[in-house]
């Protein structure tokens, strides 16, 4: 897979990666996992889809666009 991303934010990102690397996995977990309510998505306790494409289509049709689950144009 191609490597070497070029982005003006690269130095900032690498500093963040270095800092994360100095933390234990347990600490990284504490910072990484959040829980906020996501409308529609969080309103059912169980959903299943025969195909991943069905799931993507359901997300695009039913979730508010600002959640970001729809297709990138």
């Amino acid at each position, binding site marked *: *897979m191609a*490597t070497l991303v070029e*982005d003006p934010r690269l130095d900032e990102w690498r500093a963040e*990666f270095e800092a994360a690397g100095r933390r234990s996995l347990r600490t990284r977990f504490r910072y990484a996992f959040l829980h906020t309510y996501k409308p529609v998505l969080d309103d059912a306790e169980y*959903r299943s*889809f*025969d*195909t991943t494409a069905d799931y993507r289509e359901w997300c695009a049709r039913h979730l508010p666009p600002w959640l970001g*689950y729809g*297709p990138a144009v």
Partner: protein
Amino acid sequence: MARRFEYAQAEEIRDVFARHDVRYLFIGKSGAILLGYPDTTQDADLFIEKTPTNNAAASRALRELGFELTGDQVAEIERGKDFVQLKNGPFDLDLVFAPDGIEDFEQAWKRRVDVEGFPVCHPDDIIRSKEAAGRVKDREVLPRLKAFRDYWLERNR
């Protein structure tokens, strides 16, 4: 609504899935976080090998973890779905049996990374799946995730 996902719960997944011989990999942003990627997410995504034996083992392991699966839901998981979203347990969990961009579990398994006993998809596979999914939220994260992949590869040469 479930509480946020915690390290101890990831350990429970690891230990309970191991007891039930479930073949799985952490994937998505939760997988990247296990590899050291600094970001935030809401739930864990598990790529489960889709075979009748493994599906049945996964449903047994999920019930042991505290997911309140009905008989119909167990039957669905055992029969084989491509995507199952669980919010009926101690934490939210997405079970991905056929992630976009990854042809088969065995290839991803061969490329896996072990992080303190957690089986995790290789960063290239996490990137492939996000590229193939093509969602707004994936496209936003990809440049930084690719930069992390480059950093991770340098560190793990």
